[in-house]
């Protein structure tokens, strides 16, 4: 390069420094985190109220008012009692379903990681399984397994299965190859590598999978019960019962309870995930 021919170029655009302020303090951050969702919530409630005000009187029952919800559902101890008991049933179905899907999903994730041929063989069917509308096969499950606890557990397992092996496989595959080389240099076998390197390094990804699965589990449990009305069931059964008895306020109460459960589980897992991983994992250190 001919250095001598280089001259200082004359800039024609003007530019001047602008002040850059430090990030806002905790109060401001809190306000900016809380105010937008609150406003959005109020808008949604406003929209609900407006739609309700447009309904003809004989259809008003479809959209209960806050007062109605309170008077017909949440202020009544027997309704609260029922919500509580049925929530426990729903949770137990969800937990049993997860007790099937999580260990099985992890085992399949590990097998797919360990044996590449298994990944090729199994992965397409995982995706296919995910694409089956589970609602559509519930009648089939019913015919095969009857109306007891077991078929509901199976339905939850189907709902929650997909996220576990896929996130685990992804996590295991994105391990630091340098760390694995350290293991190889010491002659460590794959079990040691999996236990001491693979699983810890995949744990944050796997945990994200758990978070999806567990909140899906409540949806799965509620859905399964819509089809199984025998015996004392969970929130799903309460939804159907309340509808047939025209107790729409109670139906809404059951709906609210089931989404509260889902959200609650999601938040608990987010919190536990932060607790477990924020000390070392980059992406977990800041709340989304």
């Amino acid at each position, binding site marked *: 390069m001919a250095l001598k021919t280089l001259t200082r170029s004359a800039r024609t655009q003007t530019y001047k420094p602008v002040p850059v302020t430090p990030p806002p303090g905790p109060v401001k951050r809190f306000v900016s985190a809380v105010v937008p969702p609150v406003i959005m919530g109020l808008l949604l409630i406003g929209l609900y109220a407006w739609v309700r005000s447009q309904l003809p009187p004989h259809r008003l029952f479809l959209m209960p008012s806050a007062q109605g919800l309170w008077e017909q559902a949440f202020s009544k101890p027997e309704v609260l009692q029922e919500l509580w008991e049925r929530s426990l049933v729903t949770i137990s179905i969800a937990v049993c379903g997860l007790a099937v899907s999580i260990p099985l999903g992890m085992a399949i994730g590990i097998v797919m990681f360990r044996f590449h041929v298994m990944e090729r063989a199994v992965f397409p069917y995982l995706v296919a399984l995910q694409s089956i509308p589970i609602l559509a096969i519930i009648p089939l499950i019913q015919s095969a397994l009857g109306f007891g606890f077991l078929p509901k557990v199976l339905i939850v397992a189907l709902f929650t299965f997909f996220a576990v092996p896929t996130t685990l496989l992804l996590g295991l595959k994105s391990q*630091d190859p*340098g*760390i694995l*080389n*350290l*293991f*190889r*240099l*010491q*002659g*460590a076998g794959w079990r*040691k590598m999996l236990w*001491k*390197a693979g699983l*810890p*390094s995949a*744990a944050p990804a796997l945990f994200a999978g758990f978070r999806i699965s567990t909140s899906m589990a409540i949806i799965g449990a509620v859905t399964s019960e819509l089809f199984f009305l025998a015996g004392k069931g969970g929130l799903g059964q309460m939804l159907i019962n309340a509808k047939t008895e025209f107790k729409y306020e109670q139906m809404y109460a059951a709906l609210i309870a089931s989404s509260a459960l889902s959200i609650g589980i999601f938040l608990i897992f987010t919190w536990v995930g932060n607790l477990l991983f924020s*000390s*070392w*994992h*980059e992406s977990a250190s800041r709340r989304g």
Partner: protein
Amino acid sequence: MNALVEQSEPSVEIALQFDAVSMEFPDGTIALDEVDLTVERGEFVSVVGPSGCGKSTLLKLASGLETHTGGEIHVDRSHLGYTFQDATLMPWRTVLPNVELLMELRGVPAEERRRIAMEQIALVGLEGFEDHYPKRLSGGMKMRASLARSLALEPNVFMFDEPFGALDEITRERLNDELIELYLRKGFTGLFITHSIPEAVYLSSRVVVMSRRPGRIIAEYDVPFEWPRTPELRYDPEFTRLAGEISVALRKALEG
């Protein structure tokens, strides 16, 4: 003593020997072509060469991470130290269990492991950081932890693959001095790969220059300076001359 015996029992002990070692990867890339390199016990040899010439491959072959396709390698792998360009610490472990890892994999009992790890941590100047996660360490501190992890195995042969390449110059020069101190104290045999000629000269008893891929050794330089070396050496005219000479050889290697 007859000539035959003398030949089979050389007066110097060999720590590591490459005998016409070639490496062809499965995809047909020939990384090394009949490399001959002998490293004597207690020597510190640096390897410089164009990027992609097969320097890392040399270490991978010596350590057994890859298997060579031609020639012979003589090495005792039972006490091998190996640090990479990245510190490769486990992010979910704090410094102490990270330093313990290799001993753990070899089944050293927990208490002994802890004791040895603490010693190495002190040796590399990381005392007080035992319970820190790697996320909270600077690049230089991570590299120190990585060195401590290898030192815990009391390596006879210690191989370094551009360990300080990602560090700033000041940190790098400090770690060079610390590495020399470790070398003199522990007495291991060193094989050090670097892109920096001054670093190679500063650290080594011998500098080896490799050609473009397929890599072979095209020049060797003995480094005459006394141990321990001090930072002033970097401004010594003899140091500059030697570095210049190696630089010319390297430029020639680049041109092919």
